[in-house]
């Protein structure tokens, strides 16, 4: 499977947010402002890449040989939660401003379905280590792309006269629907 196809499919054709419905909670929550979206995107990319490598190694060298595949979910989520807590502690010391800007959304990365989703998809697609890393980073870039596009639109949405009932999450969901319609255009171009 050539890597370019993986990158294209992960970012555009099968975008994790618009086509696979993963990571919607932080997507709706964080994409209010551009800076926090980028900060969250970078943090998710970092954690997703690290988590993908560690989960791939643990699955193929520990769980698979011992026939403990059913421990896959719990082992992965423990690794992800541990990594996020680690990133949180380190970030709090090294870069307090980004830490405060991300605020609640850093621990929320643990419950971010994309990271566990990607870890599981990597195993299901039987990627080797290079494909796993490339796929995870491209998915994270796709997630950040979706986040940044949404943040750009939402900042203008706040000034448009949206009816008071549709303000906030409702209008962002409808916008996400239209964006997802646009992203569907890519799906026919190339498949894995």
């Amino acid at each position, binding site marked *: 499977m050539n890597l370019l196809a993986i990158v294209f499919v992960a970012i555009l054709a099968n975008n994790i947010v618009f086509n696979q419905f*993963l990571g919607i909670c932080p997507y709706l929550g964080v994409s209010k402002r551009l800076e926090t979206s980028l900060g969250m995107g970078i943090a998710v990319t970092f954690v997703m890449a690290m988590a993908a490598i560690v989960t791939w190694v643990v699955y193929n060298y520990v769980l698979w040989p011992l026939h403990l595949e059913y421990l896959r979910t719990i082992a992965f989520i423990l690794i992800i939660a541990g990594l996020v807590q680690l990133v949180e502690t380190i970030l709090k010391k090294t870069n307090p401003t980004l830490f405060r800007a991300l605020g609640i959304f850093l621990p929320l990365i643990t419950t971010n379905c994309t990271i566990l989703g990607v870890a599981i998809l990597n195993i299901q697609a039987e990627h080797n280590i290079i494909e796993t890393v490339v796929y995870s980073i491209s998915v994270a870039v796709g997630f950040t792309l979706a986040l940044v596009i949404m943040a750009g639109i939402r900042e203008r949405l706040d000034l448009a006269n949206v009816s008071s009932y549709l303000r906030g999450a409702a209008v*962002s969901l409808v916008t996400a629907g239209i964006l997802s319609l646009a992203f569907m255009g890519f799906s026919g171009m190339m498949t894995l």
Partner: protein
Amino acid sequence: MTTLTQEFSKGIVQENPVFRLVLGMCPTLAVTVSAMNALGMGISVIVVLLCSNIVVSAVRNVVPAKVRIPAYIMIIATFVTIVEMVLSAFAPELFDALGIFIPLIVVNCIILGRAEAFARKNTIGRSIIDALGIGLGYTLSLTLLGVIRELFGTGSILGYPVMGTAFEPMGVLAVAPGAFITLGILLGLFNYLFKRLGIE
């Protein structure tokens, strides 16, 4: 202290996880292609939420704050895997329908959200009631969305064609964009209803 009935009813109306707290969006959007899936997902979330709330509030004083999240998520993951095993052993067709979404119940923001926001601070009794209330609220909202998307998307309810042959099903509802737009409009509708009924 809020009374027990309030604790239960708040999960369905005031703090409805889907329409008020806007949590647990990923499975809400993806599974509600059909009412049957939505119901199956709702019930498995209730079971997992109930067990996890009980255990989390049982160990709440033992777990040090720094490792709170990894510990709780491991408890939740255990229950989810058990539900996964039980479902694939005893209800295979529901298991096939729910596909990747059963493992994702682990990261369903609602369960960790309730563990973090509620079970960690309350007694086991209250946590049970909260779990039932929020779980029921979640299932009702999911089923409502499932019925709407299935009715207009494929012209049937629970699999039985209802809308007659002349009805041209709106395919978009069965696909990703439809889910986003339907839920967005439903959220708006509920905001209007809540405002009109004066529920803060």
